[in-house]
């Protein structure tokens, strides 16, 4: 009995000390806080363990150059394991710490926070996930996809396939293989519309979660349906499995184009390396590779501190996306500070800052987005890269396709 008591007393003391050691540190007056949500331990940790350090590296770079107009930036990160209740807690914590903009991470999380972000008038970004309908800035004033949504990715994929197949899709067969969850099904309506418009035959192949078993679907695509091209929209470990399976049934990988979450070095490595995946096309919403001025600056910054650049930089797809997200937040803050130089920013100011982003390319790493009060996606721009000679090689420059069809769907969704 006595040792029970000792344990309980210890716990009570620990909890008490936690409460007193809480967030009582005073903030410098001109510091600007970004709330960063992250998944370093949950089901999408292969993304988070690279993307989040990149976010902090870029913020450190900005601060090493004196911040934004003299205001230091603080990126406050909270890991939510891809669960919703911790994301709610994280949001409220960030709000309490005075965050004026939030880098939300994860589809269920951005859905769960949409109402709160709008009520509290704090902009939240959802690059590469969340609802495609959020591109409509009138309907969702405080949600910023800031990267090509799944609808735009679907349209861009069809455009790319059209070019690859000689500029005419009439009578061609396109297979769409997707992870069977809402995010996986989202682009189908756009691709179906395009099938009617361009006259190609579309067949969809669902891969049930967790997406490690798709032999039957791939065999069907290669042998029975005999697709002329495959559009793949898979998550997590599934893209690697799909590459292996296509390889196994002898379907040429130069006839496969993947959406943005099957497009990273980690996915290729999981399939057995770049030699195995030779020919595979991957869609990107941020530049790939190490050859960008901003990445050189980050390496310089580490060198000055006498440290090696972090190993995360080798995973360029996710790393560069992290830099892109951080850079767009900083750019929005910069724009907001131009309108309000005293540095007392509110969420609404930063929202205005986001809506002024245009032609901010960071030396080619960021697409030339033009975010406006009505278009929070910024144009739906993507690049296609191909696995070739042991690395990703750029195949197309930034492009967006069928924005009329995508726009029609956004309008319809806004009416709901």
């Amino acid at each position, binding site marked *: 009995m006595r040792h*029970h008591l000792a344990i309980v007393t210890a716990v009570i003391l620990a909890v008490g000390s936690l409460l007193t050691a*809480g967030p009582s540190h005073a903030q410098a007056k001109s510091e600007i806080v970004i709330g960063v949500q992250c998944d370093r331990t949950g089901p999408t940790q292969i993304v988070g363990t690279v993307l989040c350090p990149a976010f902090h590296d870029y913020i450190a770079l900005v601060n090493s150059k004196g911040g934004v107009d003299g205001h230091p930036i603080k990126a406050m990160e909270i890991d939510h394991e891809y669960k919703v*209740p911790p994301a709610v807690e994280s949001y409220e914590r960030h709000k309490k710490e005075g965050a004026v903009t939030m880098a939300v991470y994860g589809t269920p999380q951005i*859905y769960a926070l949409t109402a709160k972000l709008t009520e509290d008038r704090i902009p939240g970004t959802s690059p590469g996930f969340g*609802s495609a309908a959020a591109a409509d800035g009138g309907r969702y004033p405080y949600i910023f996809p800031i990267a090509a949504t799944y609808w735009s990715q679907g349209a861009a994929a069809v455009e790319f396939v059209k070019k690859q197949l000689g500029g005419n899709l009439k009578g061609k067969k396109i297979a769409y293989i997707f992870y069977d969850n*809402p995010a996986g099904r*989202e682009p189908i309506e756009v691709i179906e519309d395009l099938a009617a418009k361009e006259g190609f035959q579309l067949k969809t192949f669902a891969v049930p979660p967790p997406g490690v078993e798709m032999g039957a679907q791939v065999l069907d695509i290669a042998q029975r349906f005999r697709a002329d091209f495959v559009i793949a929209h898979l998550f997590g470990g599934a893209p690697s499995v799909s590459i292996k399976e296509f390889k196994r049934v002898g379907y040429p990988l130069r006839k496969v184009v993947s959406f943005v979450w099957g497009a990273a070095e980690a996915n290729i490595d999981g399939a057995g390396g770049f030699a195995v995946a030779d020919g595979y096309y991957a869609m990107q919403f941020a530049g790939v590779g190490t050859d960008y001025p901003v990445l050189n600056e980050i390496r310089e910054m580490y060198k000055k501190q006498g440290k090696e650049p972090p190993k995360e930089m080798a995973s360029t797809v996710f790393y560069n996306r992290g830099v892109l997200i951080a850079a767009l937040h900083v750019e929005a803050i910069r724009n907001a500070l131009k309108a309000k130089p005293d540095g007392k920013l509110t969420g609404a100011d930063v929202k205005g800052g986001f809506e002024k982003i245009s032609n901010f390319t960071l030396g080619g790493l960021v697409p030339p987005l033009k975010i406006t009060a009505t278009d929070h996606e910024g144009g739906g721009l993507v690049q296609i890269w191909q696995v070739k000679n042991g690395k990703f090689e750029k195949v197309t420059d930034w492009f967006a396709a069928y924005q009329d069809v995508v726009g029609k769907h956004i309008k319809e969704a806004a009416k709901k």
Partner: protein
Amino acid sequence: MIHRECGVLKTTYEADMALYPLPIARWAVGVFAVLFFLVVPLTVHEYYLSLANLVWIAIIGALGLNILVGYTGQVSIGHGAFMSVGAYTAANLATRLGSPWPVNLLAGGLMAALVGAVVGIPSLRIKGLYLAIATLAGQLIIEWTINHVTFISGGVQASIEVARPRVGSMVLSSQRDMYYFLLVFVALAIVGTMNLVRSRVGRAFIAIRDHDIAAELIGINIFRYKLLAFAISSFYAGVTGVLYTYFLGIANYEQFQITVSIDYLAMIIIGGLGSVLGSIFGAIFVTLLPIGIRYAMEAFGGVFFSPQTVLNLIPNLRLMLFGALIILFLVVEPDGLNRLWRNIRNYFRVWPFAY
């Protein structure tokens, strides 16, 4: 509550049946009510109320699961799915018919109860691990249905936005409003469960848990009471789902996946199976402990590591510490936090005159 019983002289049946026979216990409940309804919401920052709100939602869900697993002895891994049934019922009613939240809340709970009773049918023939797998199948079937039937899910995104609840002309949107909104249902759920488990129905549940053949021999209708346990438990789950939907402003299918079921199961096992207080302790523990660990790491992590390393360490160490603490608590007291609390209480009841 820590108090000593003496002078209990009951002269009426009403006095004997009272939920709290002792005046001191009644006063303690009153103090808690004043604390949580008045002092806490009017003094603490909204952030802490948001934590409380997450705990409130977890408490209602955990109470429901404890009725089924702790009191009736029927293992279920489908709690998250029953929550989603309630959530989507309410969301559909709210958006299609524009019905007010009390109607949606009740309808969500009843629909979940119905589905829960159906999923509970295998419990008549199988028990233990076998039943766990059957309810797991229920979870997966419900998930699949919501994911694929757009009539229920409201479109391929499987998420339905719901307007904030209104009371009169007041729209409940801030964390403080939500705190009151949820606290009312937490109080109802606690009082409801406490009364349920000491009623005829509750005693039947306990008899089934302890030995179902013996229960049948003394005239308890196993068929009826097992399904009733599933229905009541799922009703709680459905209500939890509806409250969660109103709390977030959206019903989304990814909020109710199997990990949620497992989290709730963890809550009642850590808190204590077959006890109301245990459900509350477990819900608090599972919801707040990771957050507490993070605060500790933020405070002390910088002493040992660089900031970048701390950021990477916090989530990983938090998971490990959380797991380690669960093991520690269960080793110290296999019957859960509730038993730990009772041991402390019993110790102080005779203190300082133990033996």
